[in-house]
């Protein structure tokens, strides 16, 4: 068994997504494909029956080893606590291993929910030493600093959030074993918590006034060091260098980590929020961004919540209406016809430091001309206008993301962007949760062949990389830590599951409620001689 994390295995930022120790390091100026040149893809991958069996067994082994009794750590060696969106993705795969554990995974996270409805992005394990992780419980001080905002007393958490994937995960977990779910009263117990969580985002986080939820820290959208945040971060006065101790540089090469300056900005934003009691109405929120993937996941989760409410015999209409309003706002505020994708809106653009615009009715901000994969993930939202879907499907395989033309797994950032780096966390590498979402989105749009191909490539990559945290999008080479929980979980889901992201009583015919299983990989991809 993997040993318990040692204090020295500390990590540095808010999310496992950015806290891995860098392994082999790439030159900072990793190259994008030559202009006009077609990068050759690796030989078309196949999964034999034996490989599927091995993958199935190994994925379940990872989830068994990373289970800590009431929840799963993202990685046994590096991330010793419970992370919010990790847990949601983990539950989606864990449901195939043990529906009972998958339910507990989500219940444990939701037990740490604040009275104001927020679901914290980290729930700290009290048995792990304080210095094992920065920023740790002694930085966030949730039970004291967050008392007014309703932080729980019995458990320490962070004060920021991560994308709201939880209702979606809860619905999928329920569907894995409805009888067990009903016996344990799972949906009835999580429903009020999920409703409160969505209400928090609607009531406290619509900082732009346009009907979308804003994130107030680069770690909140989950894609922690995306080039999208470079602009908004540049305006932030960093915390003084001596006022905090980074733990990440003990095992990550400085060249692969955020600069001290940026790190000081992360700390500054979090400390400001904390020092205002995590009260959104009072916190300065100098960083405020509307992120398309964060809101697309909220839309998918509103639909899932509608299914949950309907399953419990109540009226799902309010959640459907909320999903429709969010979808309209998403298109209205974040769609860029010129870019052919959604973009992030910087709500503080053009605002002078210290200027108070909280009284503005519509402090609109500016769309940031930075292509992140976050701008493609709205494909999982069911009711996008046709022209938006058409454009997204083109962009996914176009020169900027190159899915199926330049790369096999979609990268986290523009292949041709000035800040592209195939190794650096969210500045180029391919991530499994993103590709799982895209697979669901493609399938939902009827792009069955592309979805099938992506699914196979995700499985092959998970297998070959030993469930790596993330990948070089060109070579498929694994990066970051191995035996990463959501990689194993989502591989298991792709091996076992059926497309059902939109499923439920009101799902569209032909998708989600479909009785057709995923095509058998072995039949179509049997290994050759």
């Amino acid at each position, binding site marked *: *068994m993997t040993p318990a994390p040692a204090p020295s295995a500390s990590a540095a930022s808010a999310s496992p997504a950015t806290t891995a120790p860098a392994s082999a390091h790439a030159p900072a100026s990793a190259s994008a494909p030559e202009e006009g040149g077609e990068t050759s893809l690796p030989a078309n991958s196949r999964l034999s029956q034996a490989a599927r069996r091995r993958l199935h*067994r*190994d994925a*379940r*082994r990872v989830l*068994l*080893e990373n*289970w800590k*009794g009431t929840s799963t750590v993202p990685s046994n060696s590096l991330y010793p606590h419970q992370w919010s969106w990790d847990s949601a993705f983990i539950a989606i795969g864990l449901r195939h*291993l*043990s*529906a*009972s*554990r998958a339910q507990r995974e989500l219940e444990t996270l939701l037990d740490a929910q604040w009275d104001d409805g927020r679901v914290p992005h980290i729930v700290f394990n009290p048995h792990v030493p304080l210095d094992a992780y920065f920023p740790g419980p002694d930085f966030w001080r949730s039970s004291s600093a967050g008392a007014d905002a309703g932080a729980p007393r019995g458990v320490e958490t962070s004060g920021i959030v991560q994308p709201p994937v939880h209702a979606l995960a809860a619905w999928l977990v329920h569907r894995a074993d409805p009888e067990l779910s009903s016996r344990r009263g799972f949906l009835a117990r999580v429903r009020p918590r999920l409703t409160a969580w969505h209400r928090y985002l609607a009531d406290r986080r619509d900082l732009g006034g346009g009907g979308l939820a804003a994130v107030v820290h680069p770690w909140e959208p989950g894609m922690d060091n995306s080039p999208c945040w470079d602009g908004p971060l540049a305006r932030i006065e960093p915390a003084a260098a001596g006022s905090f101790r980074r733990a990440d540089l003990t095992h990550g090469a400085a060249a692969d980590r955020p600069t001290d300056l940026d790190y000081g900005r992360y700390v500054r934003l979090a400390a400001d929020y904390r020092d205002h009691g995590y009260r959104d109405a009072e916190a300065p929120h100098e960083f405020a961004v509307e992120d398309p993937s964060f809101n697309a996941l909220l839309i998918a989760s509103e639909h899932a919540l509608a299914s949950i409410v309907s399953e419990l015999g109540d009226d799902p209409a309010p959640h459907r209406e909320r999903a429709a309003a969010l979808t309209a706002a998403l298109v209205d505020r974040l769609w860029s016809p010129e870019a052919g994708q959604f973009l992030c809106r910087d709500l503080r653009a053009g605002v002078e430091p210290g200027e108070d615009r909280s009284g503005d009715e519509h402090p609109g901000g500016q769309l940031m001309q930075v292509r992140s994969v976050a701008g493609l993930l709205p494909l999982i939202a069911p009711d996008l206008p046709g022209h938006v879907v058409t454009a997204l499907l083109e962009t996914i395989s176009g020169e900027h993301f190159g899915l199926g033309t330049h790369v096999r797994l979609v990268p986290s950032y523009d292949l041709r962007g000035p800040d592209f780096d195939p190794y650096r966390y969210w500045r180029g590498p391919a991530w499994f949760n993103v590709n799982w979402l895209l697979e669901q989105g493609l399938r939902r749009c009827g792009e069955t062949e592309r979805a099938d191909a992506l699914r196979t490539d995700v499985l092959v990559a998970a297998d070959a990389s030993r469930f790596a945290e993330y990948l070089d999008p060109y070579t498929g080479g694994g990066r970051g830590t191995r035996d990463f929980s959501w990689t194993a979980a989502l591989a298991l889901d792709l091996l076992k599951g059926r497309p059902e992201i939109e499923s439920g009583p009101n799902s569209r015919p032909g998708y989600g409620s479909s009785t057709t299983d995923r095509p058998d990989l072995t039949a179509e991809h049997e290994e050759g001689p």
Partner: protein
Amino acid sequence: MFTIACQEQLLPGETLQQKWEFAQAAGYDAVELRGKGDFAFRERLPELRGALADGVVMPTVCVDMLHFFGAFDEELRRDAVAQMKSQLSVIAELGGTGAQTPASYGMFSRRLPPFEPPRSEQEDREVLLTGLAEMGEHARREGVTLYLEPLNRYEDHMVNRLGQAVELIREVGLDSVRIGIDSYHMNIEETGPAAAILDAAPYIGHAQVSDSNRFQPGAGHLDWPAWLAALDSAGYTGPLALECRLTGDDPAEALRAVPPFLTRSAA
């Protein structure tokens, strides 16, 4: 994928052939025999050879006596070792894989009065190591395996957890001694049954199944998908042998429910 076996006393029918017919129809792949003392198991050889000739699959035997190789009484201990060696020889002759025994059963519990056993822990350990070495050596010569079964604290005071069995087996140093795990006892003793299986993975030789209440799998509250996933991840491919009591008025129906339940839970 696992195979599923059923202990013979649970199956309806007078003869092993009749029991096997029912077992196959109900979805079982094998019959687990029960070995009584006084060399009764050896005395059954003509019957067992006949069953074998008729195609009955009988890979394992589980001891069915009231004294064991960890007995306080030296005479009983010697007899238990002799019985187990005989059972190992019989199962070897039948082409089976091994015989299962606990250290003791119903002899002493540290959780029940008088709480302190008459023998020290060190003496217990010496007795166990001596017995395991003798039986394990015999098993090795016969080409089969001795399965040591940890029991819950109320049934045995010496070997309750998989980790304790692993430690003894390492000390004995014979590949012909492995653990025979039992889901029911593990549910009482292990902090996490699935994690315990992964920890003991290389040492697991046999698996018996019953639910949290000693009834057939599916009748209690064990997390079977997690337990079976761990066993699969541990690389175990042997039988899941049903050793339990049966719920309800229709034992045959209860037996028929087990193979589909285990297959579904292991998927």
